[in-house]
């Protein structure tokens, strides 16, 4: 899997979305399971998968699918 595929899969798993859901449209609080609990689940999976540790500021700023890619870019994750 390339990084985009890994990223998309984490989004689906964290927020319990099926294959047909267009994850690129995701925003924080936009789907039921992307709440503060889902958010920390997602952060844990991203950190595990990409072997990074995010700053608290980045965790707070991680407000959408696109913004997330931009933030991960700071940690050397290329899409």
């Amino acid at each position, binding site marked *: 899997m390339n990084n985009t595929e890994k990223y998309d899969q984490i989004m689906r798993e964290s927020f319990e979305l099926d294959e047909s859901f267009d994850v690129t449209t995701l925003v924080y609080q936009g789907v039921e399971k992307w709440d*503060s609990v889902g958010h920390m689940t997602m952060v844990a999976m991203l*950190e595990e998968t990409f072997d990074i*540790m*995010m700053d*608290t*500021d980045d965790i*707070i700023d991680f407000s959408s699918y696109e913004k997330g890619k931009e933030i991960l870019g700071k940690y050397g994750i290329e899409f």
Partner: protein
Amino acid sequence: MMDTFFDKEPYELSREDKHKLLSSRLNALTKEHYVNCPQYKAMCDALGFVPEDDVPYEELPYLPVSLFKKLDLMSVPREEIFKTMTSSGTSGQAVSKIYLDRETSSLQQKTLVKIVSSFTGANRMPMIIIDCPSVVKNRAMFSARGAGILGFSMFGTKKIYALDDDMKLNLEELKGFLEEHKDEKILLFGFTFMIWQHFYKELLKIDSMTLDLSNAILIHGGGWKKLVSEQVSAEDFHKRLEEVCGLHDIHDYYGMVEQTGCIYMECECGHLHASNFSDIIIRDPADLSVCEFGKRGIIQVVSSLPQSYPGHSLLTEDEGTVLGEDDCPCGKKGKYFAVHGRLKNAEIRGCSDTYAAKF
């Protein structure tokens, strides 16, 4: 406007600068709530207060904190509310309902990070939550306990709950966790009474230092009422935790669900500190005038964060004393103070105390 707050270190401003900044923000909030929350306007009108020219924040109206149990107070359209926080009331007691929109919620989280990281450092740490996992299960309605845990989860990397859902200590898992992270600083978080009842008392039954937490920092809050009734002082709490597990970096905090985010952390001198984001004012129970430093009275709290509900200036049901301002030996600016507990006759409502009532 909040950028001015976030650009500064949380305990950087001395009296004059803080007073100016906070007054300007609190006057602006008063005006917004006056326009957008009809009940708030009615209360201001009843007090004869018209928000026009800016006044020092000591002169702004304050609502009794219990009002959030009786009324649904919000200053944004209901469809913009995406999270409701509740105080964890036991059956028969009304709970406070605090309505948050995205922006207020985000301000709360950012402020919490700003305040706490000035104690823990910017790095996140492996984290032990001294509670049970079920407390965060109901995702739509957060109790104060659940919200506290979620808010602080931000500081954790790998996380483990110290208790199972029957409130039993997961000793073997904790040992494994500490072994795995043995050279790292560990963050412990929990509610004061839970820590005492389900963590300390369990550790007391086994060999001391079975869990070595000498390289950990504990942040705890939620009230002392139950421990006071067991005659455990803050000093005992510190001393005895150190005896069983070597834990010595311990910080209490004072805060309430009605002003989430703006917590008052305890420094190494044992004093609770107001950050730039908020302040406390002590009022004389006889006439509600502002008390001088050193005098015991009712605690009023003001917070720069509440935008979606009129909770920026509240009279609590707690008693406290301001000990000083800008001159704590720890070096932090701002007021530092002590909390003595609930006022007599006030409803019992510390958040971990609610749980304690079951024991």
